[in-house]
C-alpha cells in the first residue's frame, strides 16, 4: 500500500487529464486541492481525473473532487472520472458519488465523450 499521492497531468483535446496515483487521504488532499484549483484558475474548464492507479481514497479525497466539480459546473465546465479501481469505486458508491459524477472506463472514453458533446 502506497503512503503518498503522485499526480501527473497532460492535455487531451480540450480536456486536462489529471492522474492520481497512490493514496488520497487527509494527508494528501491539500496538495490535490491546490493542484486542481490551480488548473481551474489557469483557465482549464474540462478536467478528467484518472483514478485507475489510485489505491485508496477517504472522505477527504472525495471532498476535494466534489469541491472541484461544483466549481467547474458553476463556470460551465466539466469534471469526469476515468478508470476507477475497485476499492475506490466501493467508496464512491457508498458516498453516492456514482450518481453525481460521470464515470468512464478509461481516459480515452472520457475524452471522447467530451469532444462528442461539443460537436
Amino acid at each position, binding site marked *: 500500500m502506497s503512503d503518498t499521492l503522485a499526480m501527473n497531468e497532460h492535455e487531451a483535446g480540450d480536456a486536462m487529464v489529471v492522474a492520481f496515483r497512490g*493514496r488520497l*487521504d*487527509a494527508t494528501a488532499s491539500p496538495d490535490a486541492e491546490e493542484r486542481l484549483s490551480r488548473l481551474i484558475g489557469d483557465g482549464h474548464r474540462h478536467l478528467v481525473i484518472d483514478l485507475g492507479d489510485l489505491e485508496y481514497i*477517504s*472522505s*477527504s479525497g472525495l471532498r476535494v473532487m*466534489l469541491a472541484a466539480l*461544483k466549481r467547474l459546473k458553476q463556470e460551465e465546465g466539466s469534471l469526469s472520472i476515468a478508470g476507477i479501481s475497485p*476499492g475506490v469505486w*466501493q467508496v464512491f458508491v457508498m458516498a453516492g458519488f456514482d450518481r453525481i459524477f460521470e464515470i468512464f472506463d478509461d481516459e480515452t472514453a472520457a475524452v471522447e465523450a467530451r469532444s462528442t458533446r461539443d460537436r
Partner: protein
Amino acid sequence: MSTTRTFPPRREALPRISRFIDECLTSAGTDEDDRFAMTLAVDEACTNIVLHGGPPEESTLRVSCRVDPQAISVAIEDRGRPFDPHDAPLPDTDADLPHRRIGGLGVYFIRTLTDRIEYGYRDGTNWLVLIRHRRPLTPPPGPGEG
C-alpha cells in the same frame, strides 16, 4: 490478539495508522472486506481527531487493534476536544449535485462500515471503539456454477 501503537496526533501520521491497521488485520487472517472497512473507518476517525479535535501537539494518539474470532475492534484514545460520532449530522447521500453538501462523509463512513461504536470521555481523554463483526467468507462458485 491485540496490538497497540501510539502516533503523533498529526495529519502526517494517518498513512502510518492505516498501515498499522492493515498489518494487524492481515496477520490475523481477516478477509479483504473487513480490512477495507476497518482501515477506512479508523482513518476517518483519526482524521476527525487530527483535523478537528485539536489534540495538544505533545500528546499521543493511541490505537489498539484487536481481532477475535467473531469481531474486530479498534480502540482510539486522544486528548482532543470531546467528540461523539453518534452526535454528528449525516449527509444526504441521495442529494443531487446542487444540493450536495461538502463534508460529513467521514462520520457516515464510520457508521456504515462498523456494527457498533462505543464512546466515552474522561479526564481529558476521548475513548472511541469501533467494532465490526467478521463476515463469513462467501465460498467461490463450484464447477459449473460460475
